[in-house]
């Protein structure tokens, strides 16, 4: 075995290109192969659904995250505006007095 010095190659970081989802690479359906078709990694239906709806799922997840953030903010605001215990006690006392007078 002969080596070839100075042949090392690095591409550097490059953006990954995405092939059209509807295009099946020819090597995956090569008719000349006698070893048989490759076993699918997932059930065909689940794979198709996942590929079709993945962007939608991601979008929905982002919406849910935004909703959680706004709900948290709402809860924080409510806690800030919640009346103090002293105020509540005063209100209760006033109510009690009012009832006694009526009796």
């Amino acid at each position: 075995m002969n080596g070839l010095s100075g042949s090392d190659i690095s591409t550097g970081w490059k953006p990954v290109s995405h092939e059209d989802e509807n295009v099946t690479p020819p090597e995956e359906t090569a008719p000349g192969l006698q070893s048989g078709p490759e076993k699918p990694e997932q059930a065909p239906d689940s794979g198709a659904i996942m590929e079709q709806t993945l962007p939608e799922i991601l979008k929905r997840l982002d919406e849910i995250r935004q909703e959680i953030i706004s709900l948290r903010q709402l809860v924080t605001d409510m806690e800030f505006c919640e009346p103090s215990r002293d105020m509540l006690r005063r209100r209760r006392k006033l109510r009690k007095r009012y009832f006694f007078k009526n009796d």
Partner: protein
Amino acid sequence: MTDAVNSVYDWQRIEIYTKQILGKKAFRDVCVFWQNRPGEQPDPVIRHPVRLYIINDGSCPGPSPSAGSPVKSVRLCKRAVMPDYPKNTITGSRKSRITHRFSLVLLVEYENGEFKVITLPRQLSAPGFSRGGSAMVFSELISPGTDNTVSQNRNDAGLSEKLTLVAEGNILTAFEYALTFPLSVFEPEISPIDLENPTLQSIILLSNLRYEADVVEPYMAPAGEGQFVWTTAVDFILYEDITIKLGIEQDILVQGLSEG
């Protein structure tokens, strides 16, 4: 070590822009130039070398050609990689594919002491086709009338490989080696959600290129139009290591001191 120990109160918020590796895979001893034997089922493990029929020095095509001087040795001078290659593609079926285009420059030494430089696949032709006299080497890699796929293999782990010829008009410009594999091959495994990241990038490293070239026997090859030419059969095979990394861009915030 500095004289004064920096206090934690001196720390500052530092934003670092870097590449986070999502997954990587090193394929060792990858055979990127091989030949499936005609009529045999491709073996996922065993690779057969490409048989090159190199025209003997001084042999000219004819009904009864002169033997000329046979090939004594073949050396690989250079493996030229085409611009923008190798590259990585995510296929429609969520697999990663490394595509690699190259040409080979061989230094051929003949028994009579002569040397010639041969560029493949530019000077390659199917047996029986001299390509206007420009062909120096015949190979059964090329089958006239078929597509440019010359060799392909697939193993049980879901890896598939293919060797094809790239042509521009009538000129063969490069060999194209393609290796397709599932994302589960990456270490750690890459999830399909990671593929949606708009900053997804790849880096490919080719290293440890090595070859075997064995002179086999003299062979009288058809040269077309009822003519023949004396050649020397040479078995040639090429291996290398291919490493791929997939990564995304990350902004990282740390507390500390920069030395700069």
